[in-house]
């Protein structure tokens, strides 16, 4: 395990760290989002898309978070499967609903953007479809976790499913190359540098960081809640026994 993870693997140290880190990430997210939104709304209109280009600052970071959270979920699942660590499983369990919400946000804002730009709420192109598949997969993960009562068994089954689903992530990423359709290709991360002007790149980057910080804060809060829930269960059991 990397040293940072090994340090946090101790639940007491994790609780002490997250007690401060969670609100700090939250404040950071608010500050970054304010700056990003300010720059986004003061940026000039796009010569083709007009005002609707501003939807990008909400939509693109959400779509990036949809995959980023899945990477976190798969990573936590891997640690939970290999080291059988309860905290890693709590992290995986806590990440899934957040990922589902970010994915839903990406789909909804994308649909709102598509209506004025493409003239339709939804197109069945590969990338939209694969994000929808990712959303369904989050739901499947949550459903599986909910359907198995035994805590340890549910954790391992969920971890296996998350790793099986990790095969889907490259499909999401490369579907743009496989299929040519209405959705435009990658324009931020390219070998020859971004094709977007800096006026849009700055607010986009700030919003992406704000989303990441917000996820970090919410994730820590949810993991803390899982830990408290386990402690409360243990305390209730102890109170019932003695």
């Amino acid at each position: 395990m990397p040293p940072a993870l090994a340090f946090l693997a101790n639940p007491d140290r994790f609780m002490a760290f997250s007690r401060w880190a969670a609100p700090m990430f939250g404040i950071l997210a608010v500050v970054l989002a304010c700056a990003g939104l300010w720059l986004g709304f003061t940026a000039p209109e796009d010569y083709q898309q007009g005002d609707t280009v501003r939807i990008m600052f909400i939509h693109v970071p959400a779509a990036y978070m949809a995959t980023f959270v899945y990477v976190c979920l798969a990573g936590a699942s891997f640690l939970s499967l290999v080291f059988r660590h309860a905290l890693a499983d709590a992290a995986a369990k806590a990440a899934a609903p957040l990922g589902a919400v970010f994915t839903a946000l990406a789909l909804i804002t994308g649909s709102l953007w598509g209506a004025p730009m493409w003239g339709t709420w939804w197109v069945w192109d590969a990338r939209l479809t694969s994000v929808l598949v990712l959303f369904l997969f989050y739901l499947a993960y949550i459903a599986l976790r909910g359907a198995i009562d035994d805590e340890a068994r549910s954790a391992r089954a969920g971890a296996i499913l998350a790793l099986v689903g990790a095969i889907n992530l490259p499909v999401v990423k490369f579907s743009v190359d496989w299929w040519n359709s209405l959705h435009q290709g990658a324009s931020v991360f390219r070998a020859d540098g971004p094709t977007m002007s800096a006026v849009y790149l700055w607010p986009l980057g700030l919003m992406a960081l704000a989303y990441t910080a917000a996820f970090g804060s919410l994730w820590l809060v949810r993991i803390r809640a899982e830990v408290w829930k386990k402690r409360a269960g243990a305390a209730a059991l102890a109170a019932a026994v003695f």
Partner: protein
Amino acid sequence: MSRLLALLRRETALAWGGGGGPLVAVGFYAGVVTMLPLAIGPDLERLAGIAPAAAFVALALASLLSLERMFERDYEDGALDLLTLSPTPLEAVAAIKSIAQWIAAGAPLAIAAPIAAIALGASPQHAGLTFVTAALGGLAFAFVGGTGAALALGARRGALLTAVIVLPLFAPPVIFGAGALQAAANGLAWTSGLLLLAGYTLAAAALGPVAMAAACRNALS
């Protein structure tokens, strides 16, 4: 080797008989395919446009039917515990179970697929390609579906849960298989779709048994 063959014979016999075999799968398949003209209208030209796609979607749905029986029965009567104790690795057992699933449901459906596609107005000259993609896709459905079935072991409402888990994972083989058929119907190059489908199927056959075995061990723990 003889142990694996005996296992294959047992699994195929169990999957083929007992009211869940090819007849049910093909019957369900025919039912879904019949619903389509009833919903869309009898215009053969319109149906021909969606024939390959419809044949593939119905195939994916029909593959879901018997998944629940793959592990659940052995899990309930204790046979899965015995299989875990045998010298054959559980990964090989899972692979054999998936192949038996394909023999009992996938292969009959692959034979039915070109018939359904032609009935919906597809050109008969692509019947061979339809059979090959349906057979390959069915094999992928068996391995991926088996993973979902093994994960849902011991869960409440296992059959429904299996469908919810597995359907998102069915997306790539459906895309590649139906894509190849659609390209062939439009007179375009269809080899890339077929090759991608074959690649996906091989990956599912290689990785699926590992996940199935891990899920089975977890359910038995």
